[in-house]
């Protein structure tokens, strides 16, 4: 068995690293810098928002022939979640003969670095981009950099260098042939360990003397079993929330269960009418899934966070965290999403609109978890619109995000579902606004009626990101915009 207690094993540039005796909350960044002395990767913020720490995390591809990468923020990823994976840092790029990766070479030539502190992260974000997109357009380049702050250059030479690097497509791919056999060697078990009696034994990756653990199961059965036994367990997927708690509040959860190795939770099942999105499916995957059916939802997800955030954060994680300004929820509420909740071997269905009971509170019972999110595919005539308003377009927190779904029946709005975040203690539908819209011809909807419904629906409260006056005005204007543009089409 490969699951050796208290040892995190990962591949780094053709070598297996065995990290022993580390805390369950040690971050990948701290380990790389302090133990591996790979100081090229920098800490800029320790909250996944500046990108100075971007590294590429690899997993054996499905065929077992190569490595699939995601750019991640090493500062918020916990080291034990690397178990069974590989890492590429900025130091991995230069070839033994001294040749720089084209992205590096062009960054030099185009004057893409000034103080240089953000540069390793920017290089890694771009190198990661060109692994899958060898000819990115300008928008794809800037999107890949949406989580990389540079305070010196004004970005222009960085964008230029990315474009120019792609003139050498043959040199863009990383050579990771040496990593593949090693990834196979350290691959985590795909079936649970069973006791003599047939009971599931979840092997910890890290276990402390006090009995605190970091576990990384492979099956839903293990997840369910472990959660029943340890109902206070913190579930970890993208680490975009837990990483912050660890870094900023010095949180030390007793039990941490990483869901990234649970194959069944990383899959999307599909019927004619519904996508069943597993709890560990990343936002990037969801973005691709809904791109055609619900382009506004895909755009909200694109603006949800940077690629390192989107490629690790999950839809179920966003829902479970239940932040009042969670961006996926208004879209999911307008689309009538259903949650499959599981405790032990029992599952139940709860509509997302019935899930929250208060600020960061939900109907989830002790030991229960979200197994999947069910999202309906669009029906004929269904209009779905969504828009997020924030100070900055990319990687920012919403002032409000609104989403609507409806059809037009004889020129009248029908089956209206309208939801917002940022207006109430949890993202929610706005029934009084829906009532103003339902059955009306779009042209007959009056702004004043929406204003009255907003005033009646929500408690006016100024927030960190916007005053109430602004939020209320935007909430009304977005509702009008959502139906107005349809009016022009209809």
């Amino acid at each position, binding site marked *: 068995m490969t699951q050796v207690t208290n040892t995190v094993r990962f591949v780094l540039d053709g070598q297996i690293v065995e990290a022993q005796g580390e805390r369950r909350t040690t971050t990948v960044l701290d380990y790389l810098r302090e133990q591996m002395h790979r100081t090229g990767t920098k800490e800029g913020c*320790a909250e996944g928002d500046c990108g100075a720490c971007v590294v590429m995390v690899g997993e054996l591809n499905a065929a077992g022939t190569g490595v699939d990468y995601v750019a991640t923020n090493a500062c918020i990823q916990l080291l034990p979640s690397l178990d069974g994976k590989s890492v590429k840092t900025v130091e991995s790029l230069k070839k033994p003969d001294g040749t720089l990766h084209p992205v590096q070479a062009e960054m030099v030539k185009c004057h893409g670095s000034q103080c240089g502190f953000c540069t390793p992260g920017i290089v890694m974000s771009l190198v990661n981009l060109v692994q899958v997109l060898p000819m990115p357009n300008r928008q794809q380049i800037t999107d890949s950099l949406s989580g990389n702050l540079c305070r010196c250059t*004004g970005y222009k030479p960085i964008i230029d260098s990315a474009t120019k690097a792609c003139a050498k497509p043959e040199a863009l791919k990383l050579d990771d042939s040496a990593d593949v056999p090693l990834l196979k060697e350290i691959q985590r078990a795909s079936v649970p360990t069973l006791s003599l009696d047939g009971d599931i034994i979840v092997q910890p990756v890290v276990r402390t003397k006090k009995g605190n653990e970091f576990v990384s199961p492979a099956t839903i059965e293990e997840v369910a079993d472990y959660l029943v036994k340890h109902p206070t367990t913190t579930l970890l997927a993208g680490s975009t929330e837990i990483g912050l708690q660890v870094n900023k509040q010095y949180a030390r959860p007793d039990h941490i269960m990483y869901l990234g190795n649970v194959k069944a939770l990383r899959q999307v099942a599909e019927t004619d009418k519904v996508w069943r999105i597993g709890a560990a499916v990343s936002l990037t995957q969801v973005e691709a899934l809904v791109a055609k059916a619900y382009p506004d939802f895909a755009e909200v997800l694109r603006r949800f966070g940077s690629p390192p955030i989107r490629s690790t954060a999950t839809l179920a994680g966003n829902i479970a965290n239940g932040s009042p300004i969670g961006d996926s929820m208004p879209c999911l509420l307008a689309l009538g999403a259903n949650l499959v909740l599981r405790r032990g071997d029992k599952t139940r269905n709860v509509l997302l609109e019935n899930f929250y009971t208060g600020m960061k509170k939900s109907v989830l019972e002790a030991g229960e978890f979200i197994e999947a999110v069910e999202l309906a595919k669009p029906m004929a005539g269904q209009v779905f619109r969504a828009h997020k308003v924030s100070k900055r377009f990319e990687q920012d927190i919403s002032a409000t995000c609104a989403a609507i779904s409806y059809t037009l029946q004889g020129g009248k709005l029908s089956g209206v579902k309208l939801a917002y975040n940022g207006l109430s203690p949890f993202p929610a539908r706005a029934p009084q606004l829906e009532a103003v819209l339902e059955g009306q011809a779009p042209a007959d909807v009056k702004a004043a009626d929406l204003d009255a419904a907003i005033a009646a629906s929500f408690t006016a409260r100024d927030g960190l990101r916007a005053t109430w006056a602004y939020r209320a005005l935007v909430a009304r204007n977005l509702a009008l915009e959502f139906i107005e543009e349809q009016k022009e089409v209809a």
Partner: protein
Amino acid sequence: MNAPTALKNLLPASGVQQGTDIVHESAHLHVTGTATYIDDIPEHAGTLYAALILSPVAHGELIGDGIDRAAILKEHGVVAVYTAKDIPGENNCGPIVHDDPFLAAGKVEFIGQAVAVVVARNMLYAREAAHKAKVLVKELTPILTVEEAMAAGSFIMPPKGITRGDAATAIANAPHKIKGTTRTGQQEQFYLEGQITYAVPKEDGQLTLYVSTQHPDGNQREAAHALNLHTNDVEVICRRMGGGFGGKEGNASIFSQSAALAAHKLQKPVKLRVNRDDDMTITGKRHDFRIDYEVGFDDNGRVLGADITLMSRCGYSTDYSGPVNDRACLHIDNSYHIPALKLISHRCKTNTQSATAFRGFGGPQGMFGIETVMDEIAMTLGKDPLEVRKLNLYTDPAISGSPDTMTTQYNQLIEDWVGDKVIAQVERESNYAERRAQVQAFNAKSKTRKRGLALVPLKFGISFTATHLNQGGALLVVYMDGSVSCNHGGTEMGQGLNTKMAQVCADGLGISVDHVRITATDSQKVPNASATSASSGADINGAAIMNATTQMRERLKPVAARMLGCQAEDVSFANNELHGGGKSVKWADVTKQAWLDRVGLSVTGFYMTPEIKYDFTTLNGRAFYYYCYGAAVSEVEIDTRTGEWWLKAVDIVQDVGRSINPALDKGQIEGAYVQGMGWLTMEECIWDKKGKLLTHGPSTYKIPVAGDIPEHFKVSLFDNANLKPTPFNSKATGEPPLMLGLSAFFALRDAVAASANHKAVVYMDAPATPERILMACEKAKATAGL
């Protein structure tokens, strides 16, 4: 030898380095992650780690020394904890006035003020202990805003002012008047590398401090004073910073002194690296300003008189607030001749972080004030703001008949005025007139989206306003193999100073840049160096290097003359060779021969800026050696339903003199524009009612990202030699282009005005967040009756 006061004897040997786009000397290290920042230096065995315990209240009296020492010492891994009481010498990190304790003594005056430094066996233990520690304090009522400070008469220094002519009468007699208030926001420097010091004790009580700082000399002196050492006992080294922007000019001392104290007490290496949240909570930001104005003008929009009151939030201590506010006063004219002016500048003391240096240093705030006035005059008269701006420009005395039209409010005659030419060039290059028509056509058709366009000029004075700081030093060392090591008092924070200095040095010796290594800034190599700030780096250090290379040439000429068989005065330096008598000899052969001939191969260079003479108490005189000029055209689009906006296009023309390195200068200009744009739009500091900064990380404080940059982002350098003999007749580029970002803000105002069909004057404070844009649209529409 004292400094040369003119550089005519310091002309470059060959000039071949002039205007070459060589890449940043560390670029190959940046992209491979091998450039060493302070936190990357391999640590000495036994290194300990420090964290700061911060005040949780904005104003309070500490009980005892503010902490429960015994409780903190019991925390896991903790080795020691120190407070103000443990400082053997002076407890100060104030760069000018010594009113700024680096560890709070008796009282705390803002949320985030360091009360104690905890030292532990690893970083996490230190931070956990600091996080857990209770500060023992009796809370007092804080003063948090400019208004509260004005009402309470709470100031860090007395007000200053400038009076020119009789503004009151001019305004009273003017055909038109405007009166209003506007505000600019604070701005966090957001250097990507946070504040850090690694303090290493050396034998016999000495200390070496590796500090991420723009001012090694300041850190050195202050640490020496704090520890009752001599300055020569403390060495400060800084190879590079991961950004500074003014935030590591004075503020680095807060951290370097605590680290030095702990290292000195424990005689162990101590690293103090604060996390981003603490960094943003502790350190000062750009001063936010309230600007009250009353202006009289004629039918054409010509300003006749202005009464302007500046009120800035300086925080709890003096820091650089004196010169910052002075510079705001000295830039209230921007590029405009204000014939009658009454200007008052109040420097408010508040229970917030001590506002500090930030690129532009008060200049941007002053210029924001007068540009608001220009914009409002144009809106009042229904004119294109560019027309009003041009009308008010400084005017050649040959045309106006009076030197007054080329004289600033502080009585400096402008000798190098090219402002009108720079505007003309950017107007031409951006097709301003055509673009204005396109914007109008778009706005006529579009109901919910509106576009705006603005051209804003800039004139920025170059010199430290504290005259004595205008000095530079260098150490030039030549080895017998011909390689050259050059050190100067400036620091590298990304601006490419060391690259330019290598060019200046190489040029001065007639050798290629690859012969020259600029070494880490080290207070033991060049003493008493001024901070790298005020855009002065290349001017003063470059001139000092030129002085050094001139001396070195004089030493090498006789050596080469003997080798070449010619007269020493006939020897010239170019192309890695020394030439004379029709023959050439290799540079490296000369340096080897010089060693054999026992010629000293190291010299020091020095420079002081000539001519400046300025009285900072009255804000009067020749404050600046020269001016930089620039102008930018920005085009934006807003959504009048949400206030969201998009930067569509930027055209810039910037005067950098004869550029030493155009590529680096363009990099400075682009980066500065974006930083200025960020200041005026998306970057917003938000505080709660108790004085706690709520935006203390990049998740809540948003600086521009790549997606905010328009595809059309064109920068041209204005072809203009500096009239003053700076290195290669170049001009400073660090700060001036930041103010080009004003054009983005005024383009937004233009778009907001368009939402009300230009029928109302727009009132909008900075930063122009989507919220302020939407609310300004609503207000303008209501005023216009739409």
